[in-house]
């Protein structure tokens, strides 16, 4: 995701280890780093969660507002995902408008949620064609140590599950708040699983140094039924067909495990 120079010695070391099915931090090729999820840490947000994926830290806040629906789907709420690679998170992040990396990150997280129909957007309509609830998901990367996509997608799902909406009633098209809260309607639990390709081998959950030497990246988002709902290839290398099909199988397995961290089943 970021380009900074890794010493040739380190590049060689990482590649050789992977060839022997090992990694610098002792993980197996398809193992994740340690994952911690904390939900509900920003009181002002309707929903929030922080995910620690190894040393990578991502905070997601969910805000709910009232707005207009899209003209082609007048009876559904609106979902908006934005990602900020804030300069405090990495020496390579610079202040300024979103660059292609943060736009890609936001759009990959967005597609996972949207395509799996994770949010019951049809339940977020207030007055068809006029007023709907808008769900803003803001991804805030706090420390970049690799695999921002999986950490962000997981944090977004945890934050959505943590999101509360106020009760209300409609009087002459006006919203009157009533006491109490209810959860956001969540219908699916998409989990993003990201692979790197190093030395023609697939690895899961690449961390920063691996990202800097890997040829290509592949993210598959798996829904609760075990179906694939979104894919994104990145990086200047390529995958063989066999690698893609193998990745799909691994993704399905890993997604089931990761889902247990945020969803009680």
């Amino acid at each position, binding site marked *: 995701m970021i380009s900074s120079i890794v010493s040739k010695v380190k590049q060689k070391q990482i590649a050789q280890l992977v060839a022997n099915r090992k990694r610098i931090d002792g993980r197996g090729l398809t193992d994740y780093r340690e994952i911690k999820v904390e939900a509900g840490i920003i009181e002002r947000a309707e929903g929030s969660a922080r995910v620690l994926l190894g040393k990578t830290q991502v905070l997601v806040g969910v805000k709910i507002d009232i707005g207009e629906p899209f003209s082609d789907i007048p009876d559904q709420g609106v979902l908006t995902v934005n990602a900020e690679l804030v300069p405090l998170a990495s020496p390579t992040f610079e202040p300024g408008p979103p660059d292609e990396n943060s736009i890609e990150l936001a*759009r990959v997280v967005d597609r996972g949620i949207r*395509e799996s129909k994770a949010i019951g957007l049809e339940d977020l309509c207030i007055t068809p064609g006029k007023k709907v609830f808008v769900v803003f998901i803001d991804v805030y990367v706090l420390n970049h140590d690799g695999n921002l996509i999986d950490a962000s997608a997981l944090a977004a799902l945890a934050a959505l599950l943590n999101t509360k909406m106020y009760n209300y009633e409609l009087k002459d098209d006006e919203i009157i708040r009533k006491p109490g809260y209810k959860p956001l309607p969540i219908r699916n639990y998409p989990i993003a699983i990201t692979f790197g390709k190093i030395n023609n081998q697939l690895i899961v959950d690449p961390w920063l140094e691996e990202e800097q030497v890997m040829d290509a990246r592949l993210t598959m988002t798996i829904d609760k039924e075990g179906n*694939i709902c*979104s894919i994104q*290839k*990145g990086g200047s290398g*390529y995958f*063989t067909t066999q690698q893609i099909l193998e990745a799909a*199988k691994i993704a399905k397995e890993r997604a089931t495990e990761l889902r247990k961290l945020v969803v009680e089943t």
Partner: protein
Amino acid sequence: MSKPEKLLDKKGLRLDGRKLDELRPIKMEVGVLSNADGSAYLEQGKNKVLAAVYGPKEVHPKHLALADRAILRCRYHMAPFSVEERKSPAPSRREIELSKVIREALEPAVFLEYYPRTAIDVFIEILQADGGTRCAGITTAALALADAGVPMRDLVVACAAGKIEGKLVLDLMDLEDKYGEADVPLAMMPGINAVTLLQMDGSLTLEEFQNAVKMAMEGCKQIYEEQKKALRARYIAIKEAINE
């Protein structure tokens, strides 16, 4: 465009009369812009796509240059009149993301290491859009790169497969993409079995996904043959003119 009642008719044919695994009619021409170092034009169904390549050339601003290889820059852009409702000419988030994934789909094919400290610029303009424009853009850009004389491992070719009304289909047009269940755009270098772009949205089981990948690759191989024909046509036309 409103939602059609059905995307497949009783015979299992699609809105434009195609079979499930049938490509849209496709037409390509190489060397269409005199200013560019390489260029190509493509029509695939109602899609009309123009691509131009400039370079390798010196990089401006200079700090973007890399000491050990050329940089490939790519701009995917939709003309304001290319879609039903006028699109703002300013690059959207979608176009910024697509520019990135298209660049990453072309990079594996180009011998960037041959020309350190230079830039190769690829411009893709969608003049008319009817679904699958990122794929059409890649197919066209690869032709423009070859036309510019940029050394390449293979041509890159792209095609989508997807699912509509429970059936896997090849080369989705806009309505099928919008109201179908899944879309899997895929780009590859067929000669060396390398997949250089893969995206998906929708919902597919593992088995459906495998079959969609296979179907998209079959489509790619057919388009690849057309690409080669288009490249050859430019030179063979001259040869024939002389023999007459």
